[in-house]
């Protein structure tokens, strides 16, 4: 691809979206894209994609710019920011479904629907920064995954602009639907490599009437995980986290590994569960209820080890999680019961140390029949490690074929996903 003059490109994109809506990248966006266009609607996205395809210009959706800044080796020529596409198209509380443009943030959506005691139950850190498009494309999740599943379980319809500037839709707005191939699954976790998501339809869920968070300190990780397992086996929980000593301190708990469990329901259920939890976690456990519990939940949700020079996510079968984390010798925030944890190191000696650590963590994850994704490295280590684990070869071959089918010209966020996709 020939080097292009940014101002010339800006002028050309300005002709599509208006000059006022083409801008330089801001902060973290600069590692993701050279210039940013802000289309008003799906038709403008279509025009942008048509132009990019005609002129072989690489593009990427900017909703997940923080993620792209990490995974992209170099910025794409143009970032598509959907900040202006933030309308709720249809919210049907009695059907428990919502259709919204992909530029709306998860936080804004949940603010709106909480008035009807409902929520889109996905809780990645900082929901005000996470657009619905990014939520889907980067498959963000949080502690609620234990009881509510992840985006793939909640997304019931999707619209995206694919190659040849086709506006494609899959699914619908009903909660149960098997008509046609499941394009929602294809787009979930595709990191902008198959097209630009413009609209999402989700099923939403009721917010439990009463909510309690229990927390308890344990002398070491083994006993904490053992207690978490007993809890998980005994009662239905909304979420179940085990955090390392340092993470516990950041969250405002005393310095030792903690189990933090959320549960809820009606008054009788909560009373019963509180007793059960006290019994299992022991007398040292604390209970926070309702408003206090929600505040604690927000701290837990927003924890993202933001000042650590290396953060990764390990995913293994749930029973393998504790042994794997013990081997990793890292700080961790574990979604116990899901087999997923974010792990981090507070300091790294240099690029070699970083590479050695990531390699070791990968081996541990593979040993536990799972895999490891690097979420974030400090700026000075950008491009020094492989961010995604490679799937086995036959699976990767199919993924290459999928990419070739959906993006034959290789324009959509190329060269940063698994296997160089």
């Amino acid at each position, binding site marked *: 691809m020939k080097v292009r003059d940014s101002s010339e490109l800006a002028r050309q994109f300005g002709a599509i979206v208006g000059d006022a809506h083409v801008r330089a990248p801001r902060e973290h966006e600069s590692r993701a894209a050279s210039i940013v266009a802000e289309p008003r609607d799906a038709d403008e996205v279509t025009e942008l994609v048509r132009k990019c395809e005609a002129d072989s210009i690489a593009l990427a959706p900017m909703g997940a710019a923080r993620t792209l800044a990490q995974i992209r080796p170099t910025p794409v020529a143009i970032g598509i920011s959907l900040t202006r596409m933030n309308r709720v198209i249809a919210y049907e509380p009695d059907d*428990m479904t919502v259709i919204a443009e992909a530029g709306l943030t998860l936080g804004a959506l949940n603010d709106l629907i909480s008035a009807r005691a409902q929520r889109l139950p996905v809780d990645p850190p900082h929901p005000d920064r996470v657009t619905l498009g990014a939520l889907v494309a980067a498959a963000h999740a949080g502690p609620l995954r234990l009881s509510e599943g992840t985006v793939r379980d909640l997304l019931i319809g999707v619209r995206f602009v694919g190659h040849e500037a086709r506006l494609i839709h899959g699914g619908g707005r009903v909660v149960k639907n098997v008509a046609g191939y499941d394009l929602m699954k294809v787009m979930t976790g*595709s990191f902008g490599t198959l097209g630009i998501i413009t609209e999402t339809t989700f099923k939403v869920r009721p917010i439990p009437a009463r909510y309690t968070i229990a927390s308890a300190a344990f002398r070491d990780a083994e006993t904490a995980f053992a207690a978490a397992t007993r809890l998980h086996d005994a009662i239905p929980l909304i979420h179940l986290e085990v955090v390392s000593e340092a993470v516990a301190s950041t969250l405002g708990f005393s310095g030792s590994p903690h189990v933090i469990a959320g549960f809820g329901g009606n008054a009788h*259920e909560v009373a019963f569960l509180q007793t059960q939890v006290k019994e299992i976690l022991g007398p040292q456990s604390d209970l926070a209820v309702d408003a206090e519990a929600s505040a604690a939940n927000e701290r837990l949700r927003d924890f993202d080890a933001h000042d650590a020079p290396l953060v990764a996510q390990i995913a293994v079968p749930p*029973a393998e999680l504790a042994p794997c984390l013990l081997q990793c010798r890292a700080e961790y925030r574990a979604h116990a019961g899901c087999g997923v944890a974010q792990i981090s190191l507070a300091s790294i000696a240099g690029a070699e140390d970083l590479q050695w650590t990531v390699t070791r963590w990968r081996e541990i994850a593979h040993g536990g029949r799972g895999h490891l994704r690097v979420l974030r490295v400090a700026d000075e280590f950008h491009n020094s490690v492989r961010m995604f684990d490679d799937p086995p070869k036959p699976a990767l071959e199919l993924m290459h074929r999928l990419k070739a089918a959906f993006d034959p010209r290789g324009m959509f966020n190329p060269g940063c996903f698994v296997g160089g996709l």
Partner: protein
Amino acid sequence: MFQFAAAEESGAQNRLHLFRQPAQRSVWQIHETDPNSIRLLDVFGIRATLRAVTNASHSPVDASLIAELREMIGDDGMVLRATELKVYECDGWTMEKSSPEILLRPRNTAEVSAILKLLHRRSIAFVPRGAGTGLSGGCLPLGAPVMICTSRMNRIVQVDYASRRIDVESGVVNLHVTNAVKARGMVYAPDPSSQVACTIGGNIAENSGGPHTLKYGVTTNHVLGVEIVLPDGEIVELGGATEECCGYDLVGAIVGSEGTTGIVTRAMLKLTREPEGHRTLLAIFADVDNATRAVSAIIAAGIIPGAIEMMDQMIIRAVEAAFHAGLPEDAGAVLIIELDGIAAGLDDHARIVTELVRAAGANEVRLARDEAERTILWKARKRAFGAVGRLAPNYATQDGVVPRTRLPDILRAIIEISHRRNLRIGNVFHAGDGNIHPIVLYDERDADETNRAIEAGRDILKACVEMGGSLTGEHGIGVEKMAEMPLIFSPDDLIVMSELRRVFDPDQLANPNKIIPVPGACVEVAAPRRQVAL
């Protein structure tokens, strides 16, 4: 509208094309260019070059193929006699029938792979089959002479209670999964009504649901990994026992692909803890209108029961005649509402639900007093389809979805369609999901009535779509609903879906001529399809 499923059959070769008028992107039309009722279907808007009609007597299943297959899987692994093959001429969608020329019953993945390699070398298409309980003609052979049945691949490979995972071969019967783990307080959540017979492989193909999917989700929410044999014979493992996937979610693309991506031979499933307690309520209404309004009232109150099922009067009477479950035969409709979860909270939930349904017009609400009463209610519900067999010589089960709040509207529309088409239509369905199953009664010996039954099904689907719904909630498109796909998907949507399918099956050998018309090429239907009594 083009019509595919109802295409009249002359007994000769059919050629199917889809023709799209380039000027009207959303309009799909049948374009007949041939006096022998050749239909043009071309999703690219380019008329395909007609290939020469192959001679029907020239089947690819010849003596040398049979000999090679016998070498691979032995005589006991294949069925060749026409009388035995007749068993496999249809699934639960009985409006259309077509026998395979040969049925293969491999014992393991290696055999499946060897078979598919051979078929691929010879460019012979195949149809995968689980238990044949599908309801949309998903395993009807259409231009695929070879049927491959997974029923002998029925081992439970491994149970990992600590991680709540179970690794099974795809021929395992759905209920056997739950039976294997229930002593440890676990279940496999998706519970289609056919769960005593249907297989996990079939469930994966159709993304099957069931009554309890309201709270627990459908098949795709419980499948984490698959081993699939691609149509070229390659064995690929996708996903695994972890919740996060590595790369694209190809498992999610395969679930619900109706056997068009290959043959799934093994699956890693999630297990769910059995709820501590249940309260099963029977709410009795004078009419369906109030019953469906009660459904919305429950959902709107923020209560998600394990299941909310509805039966109307026709079904109630059929079920009573068959099973004597104690349902009130004079009721216009009943709801079976099952609340599950922590025992301590159930009485409160049951009280609130009782109040809500009474306010919505229920005449009476009964609570199942014990497990025996609960079992009777569920038996009545899950066997309702069978009971309908008493009402008419034939019946067709439809499957449509509407937003839950539109249930009263769709049921009124169904009554209107029933009058207009002069047919009896009963309703038994997953009300909590808005997933309707109208049962259209007809007599296949009456050609006109059969036609009206097909038309009534279409009318109902159109009404669902007009209300913002979908063509199928859990039975799949199969052959039954291909003609209706353009009601909800644009030509571009369908092009992208067929591109997705080609990722797995570039030569279109896996269950061809299903879900969406084959783009850019004509399809020769090797075995003439016949419609019952048409």
